[in-house]
C-alpha cells in the first residue's frame, strides 16, 4: 500500500528504514557476539541470508524501539540512531555504531511519491549490511561480557513517551572512527559509521 511500485512515499520510506534498522541491529548483535550465536536464526531479506534473534525479551525490546522509531521517522524528528556496546565489568563503552538520518522535510508537505526503485534501495541496503559484516575483520575482539543499548538523537522539543528517558551520548574515550556506506530512499538518507575504543597494542 505504501511501497507502491511507482515510487516511495514518506510512510513507505519510514518503513524501509525501520526494517533496515531492525535487520542491521540484529546483524550487529550477532556479529559482535553480544548474544550467543545459537539464539539466532537465519532469514532471507534483501536477497541475502541474515540473522534474526529468537530471544523473546530481546525481540520485544527491539520491536518496541523500532515501532517508536518508525513514527518518528514519519515525523522527520529523529536525527541519529546509535547502538552502544558497553563492557559489563568496567562499564566502559567499547563500540558505537552510529546511523545519521537526514530527512527531506519537503516530503512532509507534498504527498507525491518520489521516483526511486525499491530494487535500487535494497541493493544499497544490502551493500551496507555486507559492509557491517565485513567490519568484523578490523574491529578489536570483545573479550568480556557486553551489553548493548539503543540511543536516539531527536529534536530537543520532541515529546517523548513515558518509558523513554534522557541519557548522555555515551561517547568513547580515545576512539577510532570509520565511516561506512550510506543509502538513501530519496526521502531519508542514512549514513553509517562505527567508532571503537582504541586498543593499546596499536
Amino acid at each position, binding site marked *: 500500500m505504501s511501497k507502491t511500485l511507482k515510487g516511495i512515499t514518506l510512510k513507505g520510506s519510514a518503513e524501509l528504514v525501520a526494517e533496515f534498522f531492525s535487520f542491521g541491529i540484529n546483524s550487529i548483535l550477532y556479529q559482535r557476539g553480544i548474544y550467543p550465536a545459537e539464539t539466532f536464526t537465519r532469514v532471507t531479506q534483501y536477497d541475502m541470508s541474515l540473522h534474526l534473534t529468537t530471544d523473546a525479551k*530481546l525481540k520485544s*525490546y527491539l520491536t*518496541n*524501539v523500532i515501532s517508536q522509531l518508525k513514527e518518528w521517522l514519519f515525523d522527520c524528528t529523529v*536525527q*541519529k540512531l*546509535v547502538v*552502544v556496546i*558497553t563492557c*559489563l*565489568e568496567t*562499564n566502559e563503552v567499547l563500540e*558505537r555504531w*552510529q546511523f*545519521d538520518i537526514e530527512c527531506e522535510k519537503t516530503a512532509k508537505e507534498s504527498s507525491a511519491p518520489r521516483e526511486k526503485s525499491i530494487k535500487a534501495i535494497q541493493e544499497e541496503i544490502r*551493500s551496507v549490511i*555486507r*559492509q557491517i559484516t*565485513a567490519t568484523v*575483520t578490523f574491529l578489536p575482539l570483545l573479550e568480556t*561480557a557486553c*551489553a*548493548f*543499548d*539503543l*540511543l*536516539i*538523537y*531527536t*529534536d*530537543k522539543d*520532541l515529546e*517523548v513517551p513515558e*518509558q*523513554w*528517558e*534522557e*541519557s*548522555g*551520548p*555515551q*561517547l*568513547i574515550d580515545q*576512539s577510532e*572512527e570509520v*565511516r561506512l*556506506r550510506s543509502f538513501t530512499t530519496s526521502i531519508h538518507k542514512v549514513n553509517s*559509521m562505527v*567508532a571503537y575504543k582504541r586498543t593499546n597494542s596499536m
Partner: protein
Amino acid sequence: MDDMEDTTIFSTLKSFKSLISGPDHSLLETEPAYGRSDLQKLYTKRVELEEAAERVRSHTSLLQLTQEKQQMELSHKRARIELEKEAHSSSRDLQREIDRNRELLLKIRRLEEKEEKANQALNEQMENNKALKRNLEELHKKANEKDRKLTEADQMISELKDETRRLNQKIQIQESKFSTQNLEIQALQEQLDVQRKYELPCTQTHTELERRLALQEQDSVIVRNMKSEMVRLPELEREIKRLREENAFLRETKENNSLLKEETEGLRKKLERVERVMEEKLKAELEKEVNSYTHTEDSLTLSDLSREVIQIQQRELNLKQQNYTLNSSIRSVEKARAELLPEIAQMRAKAQEEQKKRENQDSLVRRMQKRVLLLTKERDGMRAILESYDSELATSEYSPQLMFRVKEAEDMLQKVQAHNTEMEVRTTLPIMHTKSFLQIPALGQEMTFYLYTCMCLFFRQKIEELEAERQRLEEQNNILEMRLERHNLQGDYDPVKTKVIHLQMNPTSIAKQQHADEVEQLRLECQLLRDRIRKIEAGGGVTTDDTTLIIPPSQEILDLRKQMESAELKNQRLKEVFQKKIQEFRTACYVLTGYQIDITVENQYRLTSVYAEHMEDSLLFKSTGPVGSGSMQLLETDFSRTLTGLVDLHLFHQKSIPVFLSAVTIELFSRQTVT
C-alpha cells in the same frame, strides 16, 4: 704347394696333350712312307705313351686326390679350429650372457626396490597432494573472502575518489579564481612598473629627503631626550645640596661622637681614680678606726661603735649609689655611642653613594652638553642645506607655484589615504580605483607618479596581507571542518537543538542490574560461609543454628548419592533374589528331605518333619565345633524324648544323623499312614 702342384699337373697335362696330338699327326703323315715296323713302333710308342699317359693320369689323379685329401684335411682342421673358436666364443658368449643375466636380475631387484620406494613416495605425495588440495581450498576460500574485502575496499576507494574529485574541482575553481586575481595583480603591477619608470629620479630624491627626514626625526628625538634630561638637572642639583647638608650634619654628629667618646673616657678615668681614692680612703679610715680602736679600747662604747658602724654603712651606701649612678650613666653613654655608630656607618655609605651619583650626574651633564652642541651644529647645517635647496629650487618665479603644488600634493595625499581605506574594503576592484585615481586632474607628473607609487606599494602590501590571511583562514576552515567531522563521527551533538533518549528498560541497564545483583548475592553467600567456617572452627562441630545454608550440593556429592542409590537398589534386588532363592531352596529341602530346617538361635537348627503330628514336634540340633565343620548335636526337646530308641540306635551307635532323620521320617510316615 698346391698351386705348384696344380701348375705341374696342368703343365704335364698340356705336355701330354701336345704329345698326343703330335704323334697323332706324325703318325698319320708318315704312315705310307715307313711300313709296319714303323706302325708297330708307333703302336708301341702309342701304347707306351698311353701307359705313360695313364700313369700320368693316375699320378695326376693321385696327386689330385692327395691334394684334395690335404685340402680336405686342411679344411677339416680349419673347420675344427673354427668350430673350436666358435665353441670358445659361444662359451664366452654364454658366460657373458649368464653374467648379464645376473646383472639384469640384480638390476631387476634394485628396480623393484626402487619401484616400491617410488610407490611409497607416490603415496606420500598423493597424501601431500591431498593436504595441499585442502590447503588450496582453504586458501581459495580466504582468497574469496579477501576478494570480497577488496571489492568493498574498492567501493570505499571509489567513494573516496569521488570525494577527491569534488575537492579537486573545488580546488580548480579556487585556482581559477586565483589565476584571475593574479592576472589582475599582474595588470596592476605592469601599470605600476610603467609608472615607476617615470618616477625613478623623483624616488631617488624622495628617498634622500626621506633619509634626511628620518635623521632629523632621530635628532629631534635625541634632542627631546636631552631636554628631558636637562630638565632633571635642577632636581639633581637640589639633591646634591641636600646631600651636602646631610654630609655636614653627619660630620658634626661625628665630631659630637668623638667629643662624647672623649668625655666618656675622661669620665671612666675619673671613675677609676675616684674608686681608687675611695678604696684608699676606706683603707685609711679602716686603719684609722683600727688605730682608734687599738688606741681607744678603753673608751669604747657600743653606741660609739654602732654609730660609727652606721656611719660607715651610710657612707658605703652613698658610695654604692654613686657607683651605680656612674655605672648607669656610663652604660647609657655607651648605648648612645653604640646606636650612633651604625648610624654613622649608614651616613658614611649614603654620603659615598651620593658622591658617586653626583659624579655620574656630572659626567652625564658633560656628555649632554657635548651632544647639545653637536646637535645644534647639525641643525644649523641642515637648516643651511635646506635653505640652500630652497634657494636652488626656488627661483623668484616658481616658488609660489611650488608652494601651491605642495599644498595640492598634501591634499592629494589625504585623498589617496581615503582611497586606500576604500581599497581595503573593495579588494576585487583595484582597476576601477586606479582608473578613478587616474581621472583625478593631473597636477604635475612628478606628484602624480609619486602618489601612484605610494598607492601601488600600498596595494601590494594589502594584497599580500589578504592572501596570507586567506590562506590562513582556509587552513583554519579545513581544520575546523575536519574537527566537526570527527566530532560528528564520535557522536557529538548540539544540546540546544538535539537530545539523546533511550528506553528505561534497556538491555544494558538490565544486564548491569543483574550483574550487580549477582555480585551482591555472591557477597552475601561469601559472608555467610565465612561466618559458618568461623563457627565451625570455634565450635569444632557442625552446628545446626541459623547459620545453616542451603549449599547446593556439589557434583561429587550428587554422583556419590547416585552411586549410593544404585548400590542400594542392587542390594535390594540381591536381597530379593536371595530371598526367593532361599525360599525355593528351603521348600525344595522340605519337600525332598521331609524336614523344615529353621535357624532359631545362632548355631541351633530346628527341624520339623512333614509328617509331624503336632506343630510343636521338632528336633533341635546344635552345631558344635568350628563353623562349617558340620558336627551337630541333638538337643533335648519334648519330641526327641519320644524318639529315644531311634536316637540311641542311629545317633549313639551308628552316629549318623541322616539315617536318624530318615528313620524318624519313616516312623512318622508309618504312624500317619497307618492311622
